[in-house]
């Protein structure tokens, strides 16, 4: 297969993923698996599991991370660029089109009502993700249920919430502080 053929295949695979990846990062993972492992065979399942572990420990949107990693593996730097552009192209077009419709018709009852409904949906989706992340922080899947760790996690979350909501601190330093605290606590062997 020629180089440009493989670039095109990577691009189109991620174009498809980007077009149907509704509902946030965790919803995108099975789509990536289907395209990359099952349909195209760019990776083995073991490599895909490695990719998931990497997504957890690297910043940035999971879909972009996955696209860059898969692209790098299949065709080096050009592959990474093709995959990343592929997965953002359709979302970019759709979001600006929706924004145009919103700006043009935002004072009509119809659009106000639709946006209100979508906002309620957005809230429900965020709550669902928050619960998933919260449960994962209190009870990491690989560890056994541990009351001490659970209490610690809840206390950290509550304090962080107090700083962000009560003290109006900006979320970023609070988040980094939580990470640093966790490293210190584990160094002290708790």
């Amino acid at each position, binding site marked *: 297969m020629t180089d440009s053929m493989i670039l095109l295949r990577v691009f189109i695979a991620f174009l498809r993923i980007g077009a149907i990846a509704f509902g946030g990062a965790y919803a995108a993972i099975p789509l990536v698996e289907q395209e990359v492992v099952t349909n195209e065979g760019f990776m083995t399942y073991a490599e895909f599991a490695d990719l998931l572990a990497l997504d957890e420990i*690297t*910043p940035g949107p999971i879909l972009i991370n996955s696209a860059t990693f898969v692209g790098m*593996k299949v065709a080096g730097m050009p592959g990474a660029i093709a995959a990343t552009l592929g997965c953002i192209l359709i979302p970019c077009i759709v979001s600006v089109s929706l924004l145009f419709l919103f700006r043009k018709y935002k004072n009509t009852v119809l659009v106000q009502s639709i946006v*209100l409904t*979508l906002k309620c949906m957005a809230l429900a989706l965020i709550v669902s993700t928050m619960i998933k*992340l919260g449960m994962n922080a209190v009870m990491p899947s690989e560890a056994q249920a541990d009351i001490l760790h659970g209490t610690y*996690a809840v206390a950290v979350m509550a304090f962080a919430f107090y700083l*962000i909501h009560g003290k109006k601190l900006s*979320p970023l330093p609070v988040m980094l502080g939580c990470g640093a605290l*966790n490293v210190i606590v584990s160094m002290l062997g708790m």
Partner: protein
Amino acid sequence: MPNKVQRRGGLFGRLIALFLATLTISATANSGYAIIAVMRDDFVNKRKWFTEDEMSDYIAIAQSCPGPMAVTSSMVVGFQSAGILGSLAAVWGVITPPFAIMVLVSIFYQTIVSNPYVTIFMRGMQMGVVAMLLDVCIGLFLNVTKKPGIYPLVVMAIAFLYVRLTNCSIMWLAIGCGVAGAIRALLVKREVEAA
């Protein structure tokens, strides 16, 4: 064009500000929702480019698109700040850190995953993310329940059950919400005409 934007500095200044903002956000936050929380803090509380109300409209729009929410929200916020160039600057900012990091990571893969402190740090950050999301949820909740009525609560409950209990695509939920919103608009109009 955007009317409520404070035009401090020229277009170029705003493009740089957008690029740097999304670059920093994306370099530190992991999930799309965390990115939205930081964006809201940055653009609403600090820069005062948008009101809380406008920002929650943009979040709803970004949520209704496919693809990474960090990208779609950057497109929307960027466009509202500085037109299509603003969108491009914001999206460029948001994809650069994960791109650069993953290129490096795919080269130094083994060394990174064998360091336990990396994982521990990330796990700690997750707790901060939960706290941040709670703050976002409270803001959004107050925003959608400004007018009295149980409609928002019903939609929230249904959407919540949909994502928790089924494995169906969020696309259908978004389409369903659009249709429900349209039907409600027709009913409201009829009520107004009847009164």
